């Protein structure tokens, strides 16, 4: 930009125009402030003429202003007008000096340009060899360069892309996406980031691009593109997401399995406080979740100490199993369980939770115990019958000889003194009586073996109970027992073995009488209650006798376990009762308040068992 007037301006324009080889300064506009000469010369040299007055400059900016007049007003207005421009002084000489200085400055600029070239070169080298995908595009978004890494990653040849736009390389969607963000970079002249999808080597490639605008002369002349292949990252993120989904699904599934399992499953914290309680546990133990969560798990156990020991073992070893432990339901039922404890550790290796899995094996254990009892009874039956046989033979001899002596005394005893005859006769009678006593025992031992003759028929339970009471009419009368019958009307008849059932009831009634006789001074009261309950009938036999101590309650059905005074009980009666009921598909339970009452609850099925229970007593001896 030259601003001036008269011939001086014309000389200056000529000088500058003739010096282009020396200085790269270019005159790009002239304002002639007074003489047409400058303007004419400007036209001569192809320099645009802005106008002839300073006002004509308008918004034009200038880096250098040469002024040839020494008019201070003009100078100061120029300074105001172009605060950043260099105003070169007035007068011809000053102008030339100014030009000389300008030349020096230009040389320095050329040096800078050389450095710039070196920098560019290095930059190009860097771009070419950098282990990242880099490309360069011009302002029309045509590829100017793409480094080896990028070509490799994208599977392209440089010759195939130089001078081309993305539309020639990628399918429509990918090209449009890339161009959009690149155009945005050029427009805003700011560094931008974007993620998208390209097609490379026939496959989908997820990329992240960083775009740097190249600014030349204040305008975006192109851009650098930095491209990262994020496919793996994307896929692993996807995979992670999928894994996460599967994990959630598995967790949901597991939770449902645990929740709906019929086994009892609960979680506790490392102190043993319940964290969860599944529906299986709710059902088996009759507690609701809310009642027990937060309470110690050992309170569910019949013997909390044992559970705590087991828990400590699991804490130490990571796992512990109790094959037969007893839990207590809310209604105080014994639930026999196989308990398995498994410790769950946190990522830090510390105890986090305890999984308690309890399988209800009550029925199995009961059945097993019944079988054991039954087998034991069979073994004892065999032994008893063997013993009875061995004793019966000598008893027969003793009794025969006794009889012989007795007869002889009767027929020929008159040779003896009356006293001798008398005492011997009595001795023989006693001998006979004692043999009878032994016989009663051995025959009763054999009795339950002989009674194994079975026959199923229609049972009228009430009639059968009355018959059984009739058997004991003497005992009932002697003990003054009052019998109260609470019979359910229209109790269904069912099929069973009447002889065996009678043995059951006679035994139970006899026990009741014995128990009540053991409490002198209390009026004996025997209460018999019958009821049909679904597929079974129950008979409750309650006496107000001595009752049964808790420690005896589980054992009274065991063989040879008697709680009667010595000589009164053989320990066979209830064992036989238990065995008979087991074989008939029924069961017996006992409840008692020691010193006050005992209650036996007999349960019989309305349908006899499909497959008869093992019948060990009828085994051949």
């Amino acid at each position: 930009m030259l601003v001036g007037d008269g011939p001086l301006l014309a000389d200056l324009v000529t000088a500058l125009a003739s010096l282009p080889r020396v200085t790269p300064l270019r005159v790009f506009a002239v304002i002639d402030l007074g003489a047409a000469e400058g303007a004419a010369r400007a036209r001569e040299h192809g320099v645009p003429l802005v106008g002839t007055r300073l006002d004509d400059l308008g918004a034009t900016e200038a880096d250098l202003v040469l002024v040839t007049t020494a008019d201070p007003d003009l100078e100061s207005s120029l300074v105001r007008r172009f605060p950043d421009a260099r105003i070169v002084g007035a007068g011809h000489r000053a102008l030339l000096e100014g030009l000389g200085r300008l030349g020096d400055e230009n040389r320095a600029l050329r040096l800078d340009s050389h450095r710039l070239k070196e920098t560019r070169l290095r930059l190009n080298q860097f771009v070419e060899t950098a282990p990242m995908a880099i490309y360069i595009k011009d302002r029309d978004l045509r590829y100017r360069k793409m480094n080896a890494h990028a070509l490799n990653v994208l599977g392209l040849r440089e010759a195939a892309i130089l001078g081309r736009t993305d539309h020639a390389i990628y399918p429509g969607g990918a090209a449009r996406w890339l161009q959009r963000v690149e155009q945005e970079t050029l427009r805003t002249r700011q560094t931008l980031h974007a993620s998208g999808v390209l097609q490379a080597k026939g496959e989908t490639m997820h990329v992240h691009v960083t775009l740097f605008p190249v600014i030349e002369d204040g305008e975006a002349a192109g851009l650098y593109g930095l491209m990262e292949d994020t496919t793996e990252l994307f896929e692993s993120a996807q995979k992670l997401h999928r894994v996460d989904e599967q994990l959630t699904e598995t967790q949901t599934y597991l939770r449902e399995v645990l929740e709906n399992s019929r086994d009892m499953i609960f979680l506790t914290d490392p102190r043993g406080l319940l964290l969860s309680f599944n529906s299986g546990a709710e059902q088996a133990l009759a507690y609701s979740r809310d009642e027990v969560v937060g309470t110690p798990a050992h309170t569910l156990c019949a013997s909390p100490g044992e559970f705590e020991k087991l828990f400590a073992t699991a804490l130490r070893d990571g796992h512990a199993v109790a094959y037969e432990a007893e839990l207590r339901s809310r209604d105080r039922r014994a639930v026999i369980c196989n308990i398995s404890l498994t410790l769950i550790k946190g990522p830090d290796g510390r105890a986090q939770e305890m999984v308690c899995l309890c399988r209800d094996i009550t029925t199995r254990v009961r059945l097993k115990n019944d079988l054991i009892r039954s087998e034991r009874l069979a073994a004892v039956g065999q032994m008893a019958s063997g013993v009875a046989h061995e004793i019966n033979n000598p008893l027969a001899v003793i009794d025969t000889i006794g009889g012989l002596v007795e007869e002889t005394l009767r027929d020929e005893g008159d040779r003896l003194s009356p006293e001798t005859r008398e005492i011997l006769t009595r001795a023989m009678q006693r001998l006979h009586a004692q043999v009878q006593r032994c016989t009663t025992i051995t025959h009763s031992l054999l009795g339950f073996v002989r009674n194994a003759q079975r026959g199923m028929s229609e049972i009228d339970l009430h009639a059968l109970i009355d018959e059984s009471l009739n058997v004991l009419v003497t005992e009932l009368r002697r003990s003054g027992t009052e019998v109260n019958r609470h019979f359910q009307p229209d109790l269904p008849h069912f099929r069973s073995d009447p002889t065996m059932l009678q043995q059951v009831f006679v035994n139970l009634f006899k026990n009741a009488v014995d128990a009540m006789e053991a409490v002198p001074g209390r009026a004996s009261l025997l209460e018999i209650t019958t009821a049909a309950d679904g597929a079974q009938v129950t008979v409750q036999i309650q006496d107000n006798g001595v009752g049964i101590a808790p420690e005896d309650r589980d054992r009274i059905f065991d063989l040879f376990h008697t709680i009667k005074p010595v000589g009164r009980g053989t320990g066979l009666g209830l064992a036989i009762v238990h065995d008979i009921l087991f074989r008939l598909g029924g069961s017996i339970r006992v409840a008692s308040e020691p010193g006050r009452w005992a209650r036996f609850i007999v349960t019989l099925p309305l349908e006899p068992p499909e497959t008869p229970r093992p019948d060990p007593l009828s085994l051949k001896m």
Partner: protein
Amino acid sequence: MTEAKPDAIRLLLVDDEEDLVTFLAHRLRKRGIEVAVAVNGQQALDAAAARTFDVAVVDLKMPDFDGITVMERLKKNQPFLEVLMLTGHGSHDSAWEAGRLHAFRYLLKPYDFDELHGLIEQAATQRRQKLSAEFATRLADLMAGTTSARDLIEECDRLRREYEQD
């Protein structure tokens, strides 16, 4: 000691318990029964080979043969013999077996002597009744089937000899 009369009951007493056999035999003889004794199965079979018995009292359990086998073999040769089984054992299976093979009765040891005596008499009476009935039937058959009087007389003699043993 023996008070056996010509129509006395002929009894075979079989038991491996010698004391029992000795004293029971003595007491039964005192009641007018003709008693032969055996302390094992073989002796019993030998005795029965030589003589005919009305009733046998047999112990169920003996070292050589069990009572059931003894009864079977005795009855093979003397089909009208009535057998009372004695047992110290309560096994109903043996009892049932005894019943099936027509033991007259079985008695559990130690038995009541008077009951045993009574049963022996009942058994003997039953045997005699069966035997008479059988004899009468056979005779009737013979008479119906034979036309020759001489044959009839000979057959009658043969039949009488057959049963006269008893």
